[in-house]
């Protein structure tokens, strides 16, 4: 498929997932007028010129984004060195049958497969200091999901990535 930079397919017992890491050409062509496009535009508008991303005190999507999309943004504190201890401030987008991670650690998720994949994605985003855009098809337990996810890094004043903010859009 055009725009796939990397494909990660995983099977663990009955759990399965296919994660497509997509280019930003793909993201813009799909999301430009939608909620993820709006979220990206907000992140870009708050980005610090030198850091290439917003600082934590200038990035308040839940307060400043006008549309209702802001309620669906998940914030992850990635200051802990161990990815299993990355902390979710809020996790409003969990869907029926999936696990609510609000005020929990990534390592608290019941699916080891999901913990490892999310940790890998978050590390990639932090190390590269770039947004990442994925299409994810997964079956965890009895629940199936097909969605796209846009994750955006946020730094502290020193430039260290301390938060990830992400939003998802369920695919039909």
């Amino acid at each position: 498929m055009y725009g796939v930079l990397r494909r990660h397919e995983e099977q663990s017992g009955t759990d399965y997932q296919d994660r497509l890491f997509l280019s930003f050409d793909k993201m813009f062509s799909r999301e430009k007028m939608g909620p993820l496009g709006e979220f990206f535009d907000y992140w870009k508008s708050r980005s610090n010129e030198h850091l290439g991303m917003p600082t934590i005190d200038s990035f308040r999507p839940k307060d400043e984004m006008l549309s209702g999309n802001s309620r669906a943004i998940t914030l992850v504190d990635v200051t802990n060195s161990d990815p299993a201890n990355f902390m979710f401030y809020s996790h409003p987008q969990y869907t029926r049958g999936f696990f609510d991670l609000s005020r929990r650690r990534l390592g608290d998720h019941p699916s080891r497969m999901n913990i490892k994949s999310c940790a890998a994605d978050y590390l990639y985003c932090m190390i590269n200091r770039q947004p990442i855009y994925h299409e994810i098809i997964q079956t965890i337990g009895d629940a199936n999901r097909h969605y796209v996810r846009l994750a955006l890094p946020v730094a502290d004043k020193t430039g260290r990535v301390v938060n990830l903010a992400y939003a998802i859009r369920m695919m039909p």
Partner: protein
Amino acid sequence: MHSPKETVTETAGLDEQLREQYSLAAFRDLEQGTVLGRVYEFWESLPRNDSGLPVISDEHLFNGATEDSLQWMSVIDTQSDNPMEFVIQACGKRQLPEYCTDTADICVIDIPCLFHAIQLAIECLTCKHDRSAAYHVINQTIGGRRSHYARLLLPVGDAEGSVVKILHIVRPVRMSVKAKETL
């Protein structure tokens, strides 16, 4: 015949990798008598700390493991909480194609292929958290370099019960003559 309990397939441009994790029961069956099987027996024979983890000093490791084993072994220092800062140290003089680099004594983040580095970091972190051995068979082509190997991760503790290093041992998987003839 054993089936993997976890399978990861990754493709990125011309790079690709298949990482299959097998149970330790499968490991014992498949690796009996191989270098991985011998190092596992050595690891099992090590004295344990109060939390049940094997403990070994570098000196004891180099004296206890055979020359043949050491060439396939590296030690990953896992004292950092950040798995990208785990430090890889080769035990033998062999180059280390399984890390996609010829240099030893590097941090995981210094491995040239970031996707591979992150996969290794996550697998080592899982081994550290689980405090148990992990056995994978990995078939990868990264940067035009093909490697197919079985790999064993063995956690080692300190007196306080933390996992402070992981023994990383590989065995190249060679294509059988029969398989080559059918090509």
